[in-house]
Protein backbone atom coordinates (compact mmCIF):
# COMPACT_ATOMS: atom_id res chain seq x y z
CA UNK A 1 0.00 0.00 0.00
CA UNK A 2 1.61 3.19 -1.15
CA UNK A 3 1.28 6.05 1.27
CA UNK A 4 0.22 8.29 -1.62
CA UNK A 5 -3.08 6.45 -1.47
CA UNK A 6 -3.57 7.28 2.18
CA UNK A 7 -7.02 8.58 2.90
CA UNK A 8 -8.65 7.04 -0.17
CA UNK A 9 -11.98 5.48 0.93
CA UNK A 10 -11.50 1.86 1.82
CA UNK A 11 -14.58 0.78 3.72
CA UNK A 12 -17.85 2.61 3.26
CA UNK A 13 -21.30 1.98 4.65
CA UNK A 14 -24.60 3.33 3.37
CA UNK A 15 -27.86 3.14 5.30
CA UNK A 16 -26.44 0.29 7.36
CA UNK A 17 -28.88 -1.08 9.93
CA UNK A 18 -27.99 -4.03 12.15
CA UNK A 19 -30.63 -6.19 13.74
CA UNK A 20 -30.86 -8.63 16.60
CA UNK A 21 -34.17 -10.37 15.91
CA UNK A 22 -36.55 -7.41 15.49
CA UNK A 23 -34.45 -4.85 17.38
CA UNK A 24 -32.23 -2.47 15.43
CA UNK A 25 -29.01 -2.23 17.46
CA UNK A 26 -27.46 0.13 14.91
CA UNK A 27 -29.57 2.36 12.66
CA UNK A 28 -28.93 3.88 9.28
CA UNK A 29 -25.18 4.44 9.47
CA UNK A 30 -23.45 5.95 6.46
CA UNK A 31 -19.74 6.55 6.91
CA UNK A 32 -16.47 6.23 5.05
CA UNK A 33 -13.12 5.02 6.38
CA UNK A 34 -10.03 6.15 4.51
CA UNK A 35 -7.00 4.02 3.78
CA UNK A 36 -3.96 3.97 6.11
CA UNK A 37 -5.65 5.86 8.89
CA UNK A 38 -6.65 4.93 12.42
CA UNK A 39 -10.38 5.36 12.85
CA UNK A 40 -11.78 5.32 16.39
CA UNK A 41 -15.36 4.40 17.24
CA UNK A 42 -16.41 5.82 20.60
CA UNK A 43 -19.60 5.98 22.62
CA UNK A 44 -21.13 4.71 25.87
CA UNK A 45 -21.67 0.99 26.53
CA UNK A 46 -24.46 -0.47 24.44
CA UNK A 47 -24.32 2.31 21.83
CA UNK A 48 -23.77 -0.20 19.03
CA UNK A 49 -20.13 0.56 18.23
CA UNK A 50 -18.98 -3.06 18.65
CA UNK A 51 -21.97 -4.38 16.72
CA UNK A 52 -21.12 -1.94 13.95
CA UNK A 53 -17.48 -3.06 13.93
CA UNK A 54 -18.54 -6.71 13.74
CA UNK A 55 -20.61 -6.01 10.64
CA UNK A 56 -17.51 -4.92 8.72
CA UNK A 57 -16.10 -8.46 8.53
CA UNK A 58 -19.53 -10.09 8.74
CA UNK A 59 -18.98 -11.45 12.26
CA UNK A 60 -22.28 -9.85 13.27
CA UNK A 61 -24.23 -12.57 11.50
CA UNK A 62 -22.51 -15.29 13.58
CA UNK A 63 -24.82 -14.28 16.43
CA UNK A 64 -28.09 -16.25 16.22
CA UNK A 65 -30.96 -14.04 15.10
CA UNK A 66 -28.72 -11.29 13.74
CA UNK A 67 -29.35 -9.71 10.35
CA UNK A 68 -28.21 -6.77 8.25
CA UNK A 69 -29.84 -4.26 5.92
CA UNK A 70 -28.04 -1.55 3.98
CA UNK A 71 -24.67 -1.61 2.32
CA UNK A 72 -21.04 -2.15 3.30
CA UNK A 73 -18.41 -1.87 0.60
CA UNK A 74 -14.74 -2.79 0.68
CA UNK A 75 -12.90 -1.05 -2.17
CA UNK A 76 -16.27 -0.45 -3.80
CA UNK A 77 -17.40 -4.07 -3.64
CA UNK A 78 -20.49 -4.97 -1.59
CA UNK A 79 -19.29 -7.39 1.10
CA UNK A 80 -22.85 -8.65 1.63
CA UNK A 81 -23.19 -9.49 -2.07
CA UNK A 82 -24.30 -13.00 -3.08
CA UNK A 83 -20.96 -13.99 -4.58
CA UNK A 84 -18.79 -12.93 -1.65
CA UNK A 85 -16.59 -15.67 -0.21
CA UNK A 86 -16.90 -15.19 3.55
CA UNK A 87 -13.54 -16.81 4.31
CA UNK A 88 -11.75 -14.65 1.75
CA UNK A 89 -13.46 -11.51 3.05
CA UNK A 90 -12.30 -12.25 6.59
CA UNK A 91 -8.76 -12.75 5.37
CA UNK A 92 -8.95 -9.26 3.85
CA UNK A 93 -10.57 -7.74 6.95
CA UNK A 94 -8.81 -9.07 10.07
CA UNK A 95 -10.05 -8.70 13.61
CA UNK A 96 -8.56 -8.48 17.11
CA UNK A 97 -10.85 -9.00 20.07
CA UNK A 98 -11.23 -7.49 23.52
CA UNK A 99 -9.86 -10.51 25.34
CA UNK A 100 -6.69 -12.06 23.90
CA UNK A 101 -7.68 -15.24 22.07
CA UNK A 102 -4.54 -17.27 21.33
CA UNK A 103 -5.36 -20.85 20.31
CA UNK A 104 -4.42 -22.73 23.50
CA UNK A 105 -3.39 -25.98 21.78
CA UNK A 106 -1.00 -24.23 19.45
CA UNK A 107 2.52 -22.94 20.03
CA UNK A 108 3.39 -19.28 19.59
CA UNK A 109 4.70 -20.11 16.13
CA UNK A 110 1.63 -22.07 15.08
CA UNK A 111 -0.67 -19.31 16.29
CA UNK A 112 0.98 -16.78 14.02
CA UNK A 113 1.15 -19.28 11.16
CA UNK A 114 -2.52 -20.31 11.55
CA UNK A 115 -3.91 -17.67 9.19
CA UNK A 116 -0.97 -17.99 6.79
CA UNK A 117 -1.52 -21.71 6.41
CA UNK A 118 -5.11 -21.08 5.38
CA UNK A 119 -4.37 -18.74 2.53
CA UNK A 120 -1.54 -20.52 0.82
CA UNK A 121 0.80 -23.46 0.82
CA UNK A 122 4.06 -21.95 1.96
CA UNK A 123 7.33 -23.79 2.32
CA UNK A 124 8.86 -23.97 5.77
CA UNK A 125 11.52 -21.27 5.21
CA UNK A 126 8.95 -18.88 3.73
CA UNK A 127 6.60 -19.54 6.63
CA UNK A 128 9.41 -19.00 9.16
CA UNK A 129 10.16 -15.72 7.49
CA UNK A 130 6.54 -14.54 7.51
CA UNK A 131 6.08 -15.52 11.15
CA UNK A 132 9.20 -13.61 12.14
CA UNK A 133 8.05 -10.59 10.16
CA UNK A 134 4.61 -10.55 11.78
CA UNK A 135 6.01 -11.01 15.29
CA UNK A 136 8.59 -8.28 14.71
CA UNK A 137 5.92 -5.94 13.44
CA UNK A 138 3.76 -6.67 16.48
CA UNK A 139 6.77 -5.90 18.70
CA UNK A 140 6.90 -9.39 20.16
CA UNK A 141 9.78 -11.05 18.31
CA UNK A 142 12.54 -10.21 20.78
CA UNK A 143 10.49 -11.55 23.67
CA UNK A 144 9.54 -14.88 22.10
CA UNK A 145 12.20 -15.72 19.52
CA UNK A 146 13.80 -18.29 21.82
CA UNK A 147 10.56 -20.07 22.66
CA UNK A 148 8.56 -20.04 19.45
CA UNK A 149 7.43 -23.59 20.04
CA UNK A 150 6.28 -23.06 23.61
CA UNK A 151 2.63 -22.68 24.53
CA UNK A 152 0.96 -19.43 23.56
CA UNK A 153 -1.03 -19.31 26.79
CA UNK A 154 2.13 -19.12 28.88
CA UNK A 155 2.54 -15.53 27.66
CA UNK A 156 1.32 -12.55 29.68
CA UNK A 157 -1.98 -10.89 28.76
CA UNK A 158 -0.27 -8.04 26.94
CA UNK A 159 1.99 -10.44 25.05
CA UNK A 160 -0.99 -12.60 24.14
CA UNK A 161 -2.76 -9.59 22.68
CA UNK A 162 0.31 -8.66 20.62
CA UNK A 163 0.46 -12.30 19.52
CA UNK A 164 -3.15 -12.01 18.37
CA UNK A 165 -2.25 -8.86 16.46
CA UNK A 166 0.65 -10.72 14.84
CA UNK A 167 -1.69 -13.58 13.94
CA UNK A 168 -4.14 -11.12 12.40
CA UNK A 169 -1.62 -9.17 10.35
CA UNK A 170 0.49 -12.14 9.22
CA UNK A 171 -1.78 -13.00 6.25
CA UNK A 172 -1.59 -9.33 5.19
CA UNK A 173 -5.18 -8.19 5.46
CA UNK A 174 -6.15 -4.79 4.07
CA UNK A 175 -8.21 -3.66 7.04
CA UNK A 176 -7.66 -4.48 10.73
CA UNK A 177 -10.61 -4.19 13.12
CA UNK A 178 -9.83 -3.94 16.83
CA UNK A 179 -12.62 -4.34 19.38
CA UNK A 180 -11.44 -2.66 22.59
CA UNK A 181 -8.06 -4.39 22.26
CA UNK A 182 -6.64 -2.90 25.46
CA UNK A 183 -9.70 -3.22 27.70
CA UNK A 184 -8.27 -6.19 29.59
CA UNK A 185 -4.66 -5.00 29.71
CA UNK A 186 -2.55 -3.07 32.21
CA UNK A 187 -1.40 0.49 31.38
CA UNK A 188 2.06 -0.59 30.18
CA UNK A 189 0.70 -3.20 27.79
CA UNK A 190 -1.90 -0.67 26.66
CA UNK A 191 0.81 1.80 25.82
CA UNK A 192 2.70 -0.78 23.78
CA UNK A 193 -0.42 -1.60 21.76
CA UNK A 194 -1.12 2.08 21.17
CA UNK A 195 2.42 2.61 19.89
CA UNK A 196 1.91 -0.38 17.65
CA UNK A 197 -1.16 1.23 16.07
CA UNK A 198 1.01 4.03 14.64
CA UNK A 199 3.10 1.38 12.92
CA UNK A 200 0.13 -0.60 11.75
CA UNK A 201 -1.46 2.24 9.84
CA UNK A 202 1.52 2.40 7.52
CA UNK A 203 0.34 -0.90 6.09
CA UNK A 204 -3.30 -1.29 7.05
CA UNK A 205 -6.51 0.59 7.51
CA UNK A 206 -7.32 0.47 11.22
CA UNK A 207 -10.74 0.73 12.81
CA UNK A 208 -10.68 0.56 16.60
CA UNK A 209 -13.52 0.48 19.09
CA UNK A 210 -12.62 2.01 22.41
CA UNK A 211 -14.51 3.19 25.45
CA UNK A 212 -11.46 5.15 26.50
CA UNK A 213 -11.72 8.67 25.06
CA UNK A 214 -8.12 9.56 25.88
CA UNK A 215 -7.09 6.54 23.86
CA UNK A 216 -9.21 7.65 20.92
CA UNK A 217 -7.71 11.12 21.13
CA UNK A 218 -4.16 9.72 21.31
CA UNK A 219 -4.21 7.15 18.56
CA UNK A 220 -6.81 8.02 15.95
CA UNK A 221 -7.00 10.22 12.88
CA UNK A 222 -10.77 10.22 12.71
CA UNK A 223 -13.36 9.62 15.41
CA UNK A 224 -16.96 8.50 15.08
CA UNK A 225 -19.31 8.98 18.01
CA UNK A 226 -22.12 6.46 18.42
CA UNK A 227 -25.04 6.97 20.73
CA UNK A 228 -28.13 4.76 21.17
CA UNK A 229 -27.45 2.92 17.92
CA UNK A 230 -26.93 6.00 15.80
CA UNK A 231 -23.82 7.56 14.36
CA UNK A 232 -24.08 11.04 15.83
CA UNK A 233 -20.97 12.57 14.37
CA UNK A 234 -17.83 11.60 12.51
CA UNK A 235 -14.80 13.66 11.55
CA UNK A 236 -11.11 14.34 12.17
CA UNK A 237 -10.28 13.44 15.76
CA UNK A 238 -8.94 16.93 16.44
CA UNK A 239 -12.29 18.46 15.54
CA UNK A 240 -14.38 15.95 17.42
CA UNK A 241 -12.43 16.54 20.60
CA UNK A 242 -12.15 20.31 20.35
CA UNK A 243 -15.03 21.71 18.35
CA UNK A 244 -17.70 19.04 17.88
CA UNK A 245 -20.71 20.07 15.83
CA UNK A 246 -23.24 18.04 17.77
CA UNK A 247 -24.20 19.01 21.27
CA UNK A 248 -24.48 15.31 22.31
CA UNK A 249 -20.90 14.67 21.21
CA UNK A 250 -19.67 17.56 23.28
CA UNK A 251 -21.66 16.38 26.29
CA UNK A 252 -20.12 12.91 25.99
CA UNK A 253 -16.51 13.90 25.46
CA UNK A 254 -16.64 16.41 28.28
CA UNK A 255 -17.89 13.64 30.52
CA UNK A 256 -21.36 14.91 31.17
CA UNK A 257 -22.83 11.46 30.45
CA UNK A 258 -21.81 8.02 29.32
Amino acid at each position, binding site marked *: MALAEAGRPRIQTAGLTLWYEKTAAVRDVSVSFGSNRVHALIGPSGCGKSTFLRSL*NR*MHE*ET*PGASVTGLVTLDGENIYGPKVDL*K*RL*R*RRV*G*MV*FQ*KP*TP*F*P*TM*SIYDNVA*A*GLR*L*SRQASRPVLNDEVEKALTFAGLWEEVKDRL*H*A*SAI*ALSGGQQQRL*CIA*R*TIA*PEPEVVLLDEPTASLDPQSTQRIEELLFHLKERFTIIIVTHNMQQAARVSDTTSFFYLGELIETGPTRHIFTTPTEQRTEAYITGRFG
Partner: protein
Amino acid sequence: MVALLVAATVLAVLPLFLILGTLVVKGAGSINLDFFIRRPVPAGESGGGVVHAIVGTLLMVGTASLVGLPIGIGAGIFASEWPGTRLAQATRFIADVMNGTPSIVVGVFAWTWIVARQRHFSGFAGAMALAVLMIPMVMRTTEEMIKLVPHSLREAALALGYARWRTSLSVVVRTCFPGIVTGVLLAVARVSGETAPLLFTALGSQYLNTDIRQPMAALPLVVYTYANGPYDDWHRLAWATALVLILVVLVLSLLTRLATRSRFDGPR
Protein backbone atom coordinates in the same frame (compact mmCIF):
# COMPACT_ATOMS: atom_id res chain seq x y z
CA MET B 1 -19.38 -27.95 60.57
CA VAL B 2 -15.95 -28.77 59.21
CA ALA B 3 -15.95 -31.95 61.32
CA LEU B 4 -19.23 -33.02 59.70
CA LEU B 5 -17.85 -32.42 56.23
CA VAL B 6 -14.71 -34.36 57.08
CA ALA B 7 -16.87 -37.18 58.43
CA ALA B 8 -18.95 -37.19 55.24
CA THR B 9 -15.79 -37.34 53.14
CA VAL B 10 -14.38 -40.21 55.17
CA LEU B 11 -17.67 -42.08 54.88
CA ALA B 12 -17.67 -41.44 51.15
CA VAL B 13 -14.27 -42.99 50.54
CA LEU B 14 -14.56 -45.70 53.18
CA PRO B 15 -16.54 -48.14 50.99
CA LEU B 16 -13.97 -47.72 48.24
CA PHE B 17 -11.15 -48.73 50.54
CA LEU B 18 -13.19 -51.60 51.95
CA ILE B 19 -13.95 -52.91 48.44
CA LEU B 20 -10.36 -52.56 47.31
CA GLY B 21 -9.07 -54.08 50.56
CA THR B 22 -11.41 -57.07 50.38
CA LEU B 23 -10.56 -57.71 46.75
CA VAL B 24 -6.84 -57.55 47.42
CA VAL B 25 -7.08 -59.84 50.45
CA LYS B 26 -9.30 -62.40 48.77
CA GLY B 27 -8.14 -62.10 45.19
CA ALA B 28 -4.46 -61.16 45.11
CA GLY B 29 -3.37 -64.63 46.21
CA SER B 30 -4.91 -66.23 43.13
CA ILE B 31 -3.32 -63.86 40.64
CA ASN B 32 -0.31 -65.44 39.02
CA LEU B 33 0.93 -65.98 35.51
CA ASP B 34 -1.44 -68.93 35.01
CA PHE B 35 -4.35 -66.68 35.78
CA PHE B 36 -3.58 -64.55 32.73
CA ILE B 37 -2.44 -67.18 30.23
CA ARG B 38 -4.37 -70.37 31.03
CA ARG B 39 -7.84 -71.46 30.16
CA PRO B 40 -10.27 -72.71 32.79
CA VAL B 41 -9.79 -76.25 34.01
CA PRO B 42 -12.71 -78.70 34.36
CA ALA B 43 -14.88 -78.19 37.40
CA GLY B 44 -13.40 -79.67 40.54
CA GLU B 45 -9.80 -79.42 39.42
CA SER B 46 -7.79 -76.59 40.86
CA GLY B 47 -5.69 -74.04 39.00
CA GLY B 48 -6.44 -72.63 35.58
CA GLY B 49 -6.94 -69.05 34.48
CA VAL B 50 -9.28 -66.71 32.74
CA VAL B 51 -7.45 -65.94 29.51
CA HIS B 52 -10.67 -66.73 27.64
CA ALA B 53 -12.48 -63.93 29.49
CA ILE B 54 -9.62 -61.46 29.07
CA VAL B 55 -9.59 -62.08 25.33
CA GLY B 56 -13.40 -61.93 25.22
CA THR B 57 -13.58 -58.63 27.07
CA LEU B 58 -10.84 -57.09 24.91
CA LEU B 59 -12.53 -58.19 21.68
CA MET B 60 -16.00 -57.12 22.70
CA VAL B 61 -15.02 -53.79 24.25
CA GLY B 62 -12.75 -53.14 21.26
CA THR B 63 -15.55 -53.84 18.78
CA ALA B 64 -17.99 -51.80 20.83
CA SER B 65 -15.51 -48.88 20.83
CA LEU B 66 -14.98 -49.08 17.08
CA VAL B 67 -18.72 -48.77 16.55
CA GLY B 68 -19.75 -46.60 19.48
CA LEU B 69 -17.00 -43.99 19.78
CA PRO B 70 -17.20 -42.46 16.27
CA ILE B 71 -21.00 -42.31 16.51
CA GLY B 72 -20.98 -40.87 20.03
CA ILE B 73 -18.27 -38.29 19.33
CA GLY B 74 -19.84 -37.32 16.01
CA ALA B 75 -23.28 -36.87 17.56
CA GLY B 76 -21.74 -34.87 20.42
CA ILE B 77 -19.99 -32.52 18.01
CA PHE B 78 -23.21 -32.09 16.04
CA ALA B 79 -25.28 -31.37 19.15
CA SER B 80 -22.86 -28.70 20.35
CA GLU B 81 -22.31 -27.07 16.96
CA TRP B 82 -26.00 -26.91 16.04
CA PRO B 83 -27.51 -26.85 19.55
CA GLY B 84 -30.87 -25.37 18.61
CA THR B 85 -31.84 -27.79 15.87
CA ARG B 86 -34.68 -30.27 16.38
CA LEU B 87 -32.35 -33.15 15.64
CA ALA B 88 -29.86 -32.01 18.29
CA GLN B 89 -32.55 -31.46 20.91
CA ALA B 90 -34.16 -34.82 20.23
CA THR B 91 -30.80 -36.62 20.28
CA ARG B 92 -29.82 -34.93 23.54
CA PHE B 93 -33.11 -35.95 25.16
CA ILE B 94 -32.84 -39.55 23.98
CA ALA B 95 -29.22 -39.72 25.12
CA ASP B 96 -30.20 -38.54 28.60
CA VAL B 97 -32.95 -41.17 28.77
CA MET B 98 -30.52 -43.82 27.53
CA ASN B 99 -27.95 -42.83 30.14
CA GLY B 100 -30.53 -43.50 32.81
CA THR B 101 -31.72 -46.78 31.32
CA PRO B 102 -30.69 -49.94 33.20
CA SER B 103 -28.12 -51.76 31.13
CA ILE B 104 -30.08 -55.00 31.26
CA VAL B 105 -32.72 -53.33 29.10
CA VAL B 106 -30.06 -52.77 26.46
CA GLY B 107 -29.16 -56.45 26.78
CA VAL B 108 -32.76 -57.46 26.12
CA PHE B 109 -32.81 -55.12 23.15
CA ALA B 110 -29.67 -56.70 21.68
CA TRP B 111 -31.11 -60.16 22.34
CA THR B 112 -34.28 -59.29 20.41
CA TRP B 113 -32.56 -57.72 17.43
CA ILE B 114 -29.47 -59.85 17.06
CA VAL B 115 -29.54 -63.06 19.11
CA ALA B 116 -33.18 -63.96 18.40
CA ARG B 117 -32.75 -63.30 14.68
CA GLN B 118 -29.48 -65.16 14.30
CA ARG B 119 -30.78 -67.88 16.59
CA HIS B 120 -27.52 -68.07 18.53
CA PHE B 121 -25.61 -66.11 21.16
CA SER B 122 -22.52 -64.23 20.03
CA GLY B 123 -19.78 -61.90 21.17
CA PHE B 124 -20.94 -59.59 18.40
CA ALA B 125 -24.36 -59.21 20.02
CA GLY B 126 -22.60 -58.42 23.31
CA ALA B 127 -20.37 -55.86 21.62
CA MET B 128 -23.37 -54.16 20.04
CA ALA B 129 -25.12 -53.96 23.41
CA LEU B 130 -21.99 -52.33 24.88
CA ALA B 131 -21.76 -49.95 21.91
CA VAL B 132 -25.36 -48.85 22.48
CA LEU B 133 -24.43 -48.11 26.09
CA MET B 134 -21.33 -46.16 25.09
CA ILE B 135 -22.93 -43.89 22.49
CA PRO B 136 -25.05 -41.69 24.81
CA MET B 137 -22.29 -41.46 27.43
CA VAL B 138 -19.68 -40.38 24.90
CA MET B 139 -22.09 -38.08 23.12
CA ARG B 140 -23.02 -36.15 26.24
CA THR B 141 -19.47 -35.81 27.58
CA THR B 142 -18.23 -34.70 24.14
CA GLU B 143 -20.99 -32.11 23.93
CA GLU B 144 -20.33 -30.80 27.45
CA MET B 145 -16.59 -30.58 26.82
CA ILE B 146 -17.11 -28.63 23.59
CA LYS B 147 -19.49 -26.27 25.36
CA LEU B 148 -16.70 -25.41 27.81
CA VAL B 149 -14.55 -23.98 25.01
CA PRO B 150 -14.91 -20.17 25.18
CA HIS B 151 -16.99 -18.69 22.41
CA SER B 152 -14.26 -16.09 21.83
CA LEU B 153 -11.94 -18.81 20.55
CA ARG B 154 -14.45 -19.89 17.92
CA GLU B 155 -14.92 -16.26 16.86
CA ALA B 156 -11.18 -15.72 16.64
CA ALA B 157 -10.87 -18.64 14.24
CA LEU B 158 -13.83 -17.54 12.11
CA ALA B 159 -12.47 -13.98 11.99
CA LEU B 160 -9.16 -15.36 10.75
CA GLY B 161 -10.95 -16.87 7.76
CA TYR B 162 -11.33 -20.43 9.03
CA ALA B 163 -14.21 -22.35 7.48
CA ARG B 164 -16.83 -23.46 9.94
CA TRP B 165 -15.90 -27.15 9.86
CA ARG B 166 -12.23 -26.30 10.28
CA THR B 167 -13.04 -24.03 13.23
CA SER B 168 -14.98 -26.87 14.84
CA LEU B 169 -12.34 -29.53 14.33
CA SER B 170 -8.95 -27.85 14.46
CA VAL B 171 -9.71 -25.20 17.06
CA VAL B 172 -12.74 -26.10 19.18
CA VAL B 173 -12.51 -29.90 19.30
CA ARG B 174 -8.75 -29.78 19.47
CA THR B 175 -8.89 -27.44 22.46
CA CYS B 176 -11.15 -29.76 24.44
CA PHE B 177 -9.65 -32.99 23.07
CA PRO B 178 -8.27 -34.10 26.47
CA GLY B 179 -11.76 -33.76 27.89
CA ILE B 180 -13.23 -35.85 25.09
CA VAL B 181 -10.57 -38.51 25.66
CA THR B 182 -11.48 -38.52 29.34
CA GLY B 183 -15.11 -39.16 28.42
CA VAL B 184 -14.08 -41.94 26.07
CA LEU B 185 -11.90 -43.67 28.67
CA LEU B 186 -14.62 -43.39 31.30
CA ALA B 187 -17.11 -44.96 28.89
CA VAL B 188 -14.65 -47.76 28.06
CA ALA B 189 -14.05 -48.38 31.76
CA ARG B 190 -17.75 -48.39 32.46
CA VAL B 191 -18.70 -50.93 29.76
CA SER B 192 -15.70 -53.12 30.57
CA GLY B 193 -17.42 -53.90 33.85
CA GLU B 194 -20.94 -54.34 32.47
CA THR B 195 -22.44 -57.77 33.16
CA ALA B 196 -26.16 -57.48 32.54
CA PRO B 197 -26.08 -56.66 28.82
CA LEU B 198 -23.77 -59.62 28.18
CA LEU B 199 -25.87 -62.22 30.02
CA PHE B 200 -28.16 -62.99 27.12
CA THR B 201 -25.99 -61.79 24.27
CA ALA B 202 -22.41 -63.01 24.65
CA LEU B 203 -23.66 -65.60 27.13
CA GLY B 204 -20.21 -66.60 28.34
CA SER B 205 -18.09 -69.54 27.37
CA GLN B 206 -15.57 -71.93 28.86
CA TYR B 207 -13.48 -71.93 25.69
CA LEU B 208 -10.82 -69.58 24.43
CA ASN B 209 -12.58 -68.08 21.47
CA THR B 210 -11.45 -65.34 19.13
CA ASP B 211 -14.41 -65.61 16.75
CA ILE B 212 -16.77 -62.81 17.64
CA ARG B 213 -19.66 -64.63 15.93
CA GLN B 214 -19.57 -67.28 18.65
CA PRO B 215 -20.60 -67.08 22.31
CA MET B 216 -17.83 -65.43 24.25
CA ALA B 217 -16.55 -65.11 27.80
CA ALA B 218 -15.99 -61.79 29.52
CA LEU B 219 -14.43 -60.81 32.84
CA PRO B 220 -17.67 -59.64 34.51
CA LEU B 221 -19.43 -62.82 33.34
CA VAL B 222 -16.66 -64.90 34.90
CA VAL B 223 -17.20 -63.12 38.21
CA TYR B 224 -20.93 -63.74 37.93
CA THR B 225 -20.63 -67.43 37.03
CA TYR B 226 -17.78 -68.35 39.32
CA ALA B 227 -19.10 -66.46 42.33
CA ASN B 228 -22.38 -68.36 41.98
CA GLY B 229 -20.64 -71.70 41.57
CA PRO B 230 -20.21 -74.39 44.21
CA TYR B 231 -16.41 -74.71 44.19
CA ASP B 232 -13.90 -72.88 46.38
CA ASP B 233 -11.54 -72.69 43.44
CA TRP B 234 -14.16 -70.88 41.40
CA HIS B 235 -14.71 -68.42 44.24
CA ARG B 236 -11.00 -67.68 44.36
CA LEU B 237 -10.96 -67.06 40.60
CA ALA B 238 -14.03 -64.81 40.91
CA TRP B 239 -12.26 -62.67 43.55
CA ALA B 240 -9.14 -62.46 41.46
CA THR B 241 -11.13 -61.52 38.36
CA ALA B 242 -12.99 -58.82 40.26
CA LEU B 243 -9.63 -57.43 41.39
CA VAL B 244 -8.37 -57.41 37.79
CA LEU B 245 -11.50 -55.55 36.69
CA ILE B 246 -10.87 -52.86 39.30
CA LEU B 247 -7.25 -52.63 38.22
CA VAL B 248 -8.33 -52.19 34.59
CA VAL B 249 -10.51 -49.25 35.65
CA LEU B 250 -7.59 -47.86 37.65
CA VAL B 251 -5.24 -48.09 34.68
CA LEU B 252 -7.82 -46.38 32.46
CA SER B 253 -8.12 -43.57 35.02
CA LEU B 254 -4.36 -43.14 35.03
CA LEU B 255 -4.40 -43.02 31.23
CA THR B 256 -7.04 -40.32 31.53
CA ARG B 257 -4.70 -38.30 33.70
CA LEU B 258 -1.97 -38.68 31.12
CA ALA B 259 -4.28 -37.72 28.28
CA THR B 260 -5.47 -34.57 30.01
CA ARG B 261 -1.95 -33.35 30.56
CA SER B 262 -1.01 -30.54 28.19
CA ARG B 263 1.51 -31.32 25.53
CA PHE B 264 3.31 -28.17 26.56
CA ASP B 265 4.21 -29.51 29.99
CA GLY B 266 7.45 -30.97 28.72
CA PRO B 267 9.94 -29.93 26.07
CA ARG B 268 8.94 -30.76 22.56
